[in-house]
């Protein structure tokens, strides 16, 4: 290997690593606030990428029907409950966000020539379809059993992952898709050719991380989520609704997932089931951070990206084996540094 190949691999590794870092941050956040291990993060990545691809091919993305169905269920549960309690305004709010909004999206998608829209509008529409599924999913699947043990929540996540992969196959078919790059720009930096998409990924990742940091440090809702992560009961006693915290967290996680998908789609061909492996690499990074530390998780993600890039050069057949076996020394190290017998939640 010479210097130029090392640089190219390094660039690949850091680009993918930035995506894994975003996913790892979302995973740590979801686990800290809701104790849910968000296995289906990867499906949000795939749904984001493939919804965009479907739009560009001129079809109405099938994911919007899933949004309508989920929204309908939420309206049926929460709207009727509010109606029975005589809270008309609340019922209206529920129906507005969960029923009227998805239907309005359907109308917009069928009225506009979506494949001729500028890329940025397509991306916005993609996020508008995929991201609200996050909070709806929390409401339907997790909220009824929010106090269940971590293990039960994990099994629910795995079940949803399985269902979402199946739906992905139904929506997008078995073929992979790659979307056009955000910018065709490329320039030479010494011996290295830097592409526009790499710059996009890195800039968006850094901006998003800074924005998240500001959100958690400066805003009331961000602080509410941090409080919930530190002490669930205490936060609840201070008036922070666990259901709201859960939905907000899932909103953020779905946003990060879908955006990562949109960012990575021009770099890698995405199939309906690609998300799982991408999400799991985020997990390896999150586990490096012990599912608790954001900075270590982000650094771990870069390490995973680099390891993957170099492994694909030296032993491409064993690329996945090498990346997932990385988890073993990490677990070993964590295991050696913990001596405590504790009750599982």
């Amino acid at each position: 290997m010479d210097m130029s190949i090392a640089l190219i691999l390094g660039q690949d590794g850091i680009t993918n690593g930035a995506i894994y870092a975003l996913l790892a941050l979302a995973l740590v956040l979801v686990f800290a606030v809701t104790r849910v291990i968000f296995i289906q993060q990867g499906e949000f990545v795939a749904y984001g990428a493939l919804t965009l691809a479907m739009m560009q091919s001129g079809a109405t993305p099938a994911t919007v029907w899933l949004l309508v169905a989920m929204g309908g269920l939420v309206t049926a549960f929460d709207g009727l409950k509010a109606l029975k309690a005589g809270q008309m305004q609340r019922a209206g709010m529920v129906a507005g966000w969960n029923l009227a909004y998805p239907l309005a999206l359907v109308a917009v998608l069928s009225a506009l020539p979506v494949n001729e829209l500028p890329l940025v509008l397509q991306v916005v529409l993609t996020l508008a379809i995929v991201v609200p599924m996050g909070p709806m999913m929390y409401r339907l699947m997790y909220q009824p059993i929010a106090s269940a043990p971590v293990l039960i929540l994990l099994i629910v996540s795995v079940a949803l992952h399985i269902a979402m992969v199946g739906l992905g196959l139904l929506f997008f078919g078995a073929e992979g898709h790659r979307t056009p790059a955000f910018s065709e720009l490329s320039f030479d930096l010494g011996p290295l050719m830097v592409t526009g998409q790499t710059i996009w990924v890195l800039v968006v990742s850094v901006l998003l991380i800074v924005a998240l940091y500001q959100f958690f440090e400066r805003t009331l809702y961000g602080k509410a989520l941090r409080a919930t992560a530190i002490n669930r009961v205490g936060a609840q006693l201070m008036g922070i609704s666990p259901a709201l915290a859960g939905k907000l967290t899932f909103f953020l996680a779905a946003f990060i997932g879908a955006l990562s998908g949109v960012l990575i789609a021009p770099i890698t061909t995405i199939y309906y089931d690609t998300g799982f492996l991408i999400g799991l690499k985020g997990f390896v990074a999150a586990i490096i951070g012990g599912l608790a530390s954001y900075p270590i998780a982000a650094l771990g993600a870069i390490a995973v990206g680099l390891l993957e890039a170099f492994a694909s050069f030296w032993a491409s057949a064993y690329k996945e084996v090498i990346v997932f076996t990385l988890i073993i020394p990490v677990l070993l190290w964590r295991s050696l540094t913990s001596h405590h017998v504790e009750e599982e939640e």
Partner: protein
Amino acid sequence: MRTDRLVLGAFLALLLMVPAILSPYYVTLLNYIGLYAMVALGLVLLTGVGGLTSFGQAAFVGLGAYTTAALTTATDLPAWLAWVGASPWFTLVAGLLITAAVAVLLGSLTLKLSGHFLPLGTIAWGISLYFLFGTMQSLGGHTGITGIPPIELFGWTLDGGGEIFYLIWAFLLLGMLTTHNLLDSREGRAIRALKGGRVMAEAMGVDTGRARMIIFVIAALLACASGWLYAHMQRFVNPTPFGVHIGIEYLFMAVVGGAGYVWGAIVGAGVITVLKQWLQDWLPSLLGASGNFEMIVFGILMVLVLHRAREGLWPILKKLVPMRTIHKTIDAQAEPLPRRTLPAPGTLILEAKDVTRRFGGLVANNNMSLEVKAGEILALIGPNGAGKSTMFNQISGVDTPTSGEVLFLGKPVAGRDSREIARMGMSRTFQHVKLLPTMSVLENVAIGAHLRSHKGVLSSAWRLDRAEEARILKEAAHQIERVGLKDHMFDEAGSLALGQQRILEIARALCADPCLLLLDEPAAGLRYKEKQALAELLKRLRSEGMATLIVEHDMDFVMNLVDRVVVMEFGQKIAEGLPEEVQQNPAVLEAYLGGVE
């Protein structure tokens, strides 16, 4: 005739007849159900009973299948290994050994960490192993290995679905019997304590890390055996059935069937396998596309099961056949468990010397000293926040003093884990009751005798432990009678009133045959008569030479019972002496009643 035996007998008779009366299609289906149920059985033990889980069981199945496939078809094995490939029975042993080694390795990496690292680790290594099967050319890559010989048993070649059927179900039933026996034993109680009772179990001397490892390895071995059978039934292997998604399907089987129940494994494997067949025929034509769409239904079904019937289908099915619950019998003839010789009355048992414990700037205990002698009851009292619980934690080894030391029988307590301290003869109850609510009072108390008995997993699994088990149960029953819970012996521990649960904890502590009893607020929640009975019991123990340390708020109870009192306030000892002296002590009066201005 007991109903349960009747139902079981009918089930076995039906199984025997299956190959004769059902068409080959259904025999094959039942073969698969048997193979899957074996893996699900491991998950019952791991997830339902032990509170751990693994998505990597399919990889263990793969280890079993690939070991036998590679060894029985290889033509160029080195001489020292060639004999293993001669018979599938040798390769079964080889597969089990390899699987056990891998499971021990993975277990030692992940089992010490909190529960969710294990499933995440298993997903990762399940994927690794799947890709490894697919990429290693010596294992045939993605096309796999063909030409695996059938199993032979006493000259009978099991090369048809109807023949291997008996072997598969014999393996499964053997696995179920073993698991059932294991759970109903000394080791089994330790395993059942893993879910929600680890701290308590450790305090009773159970090595919970070892218990976790045991169930992880057993689950892996069951999966490996299933893989071995699978390889010799199919006569070829490829990586597809060992991927992580199949591992997830195994977990679905266990959860849908009823993860806490041995029979749940068969129910779950049956339901999921039949449903899968049916959906695979039906869904693609309905949706007009081909693919594994049954996964959508499984995913949603799984969430519904966890929302609506978290215990799975087995408990619902069980209600259909009314059965009398059968209590354990206590064998009055059983030999008593060996007892330790208690130190002579007056011997110094426990000594705390200048114990100081700081939490940052807060001094919770400051230069606390106390001693307890054999045949004496010492009370540690003080207003709320005086540092009693902190002191209790230093003595019981849960926490380590910043300076000073605690000596139990002349040996320092600090730095030892709860198990060692229990072994030395200190036994405790908890301020917040810690018991296993769905287990009977008898079984809860029997956990206390863990260190007084020795039969291991293998003897438990094959019922070689019955003599010792009878002795344990007799001892537990004796302690239950002694504390006055005889009428509740077979009730679920969680159904008792809080006061009675505290008494149960005392019985459990006594079952360990200690020489020092630490009781944390034993009288809280008791009625007057119950308090009197408890006081009588403690007096009787004192006359037998037991040393007792009580932390308690109920002054009437304390003052009429104990020999000496130590009073704490703001982390310090403010008085010590006979109950009458302490009650007159101006510092104590001020601490409890406030000073006179």
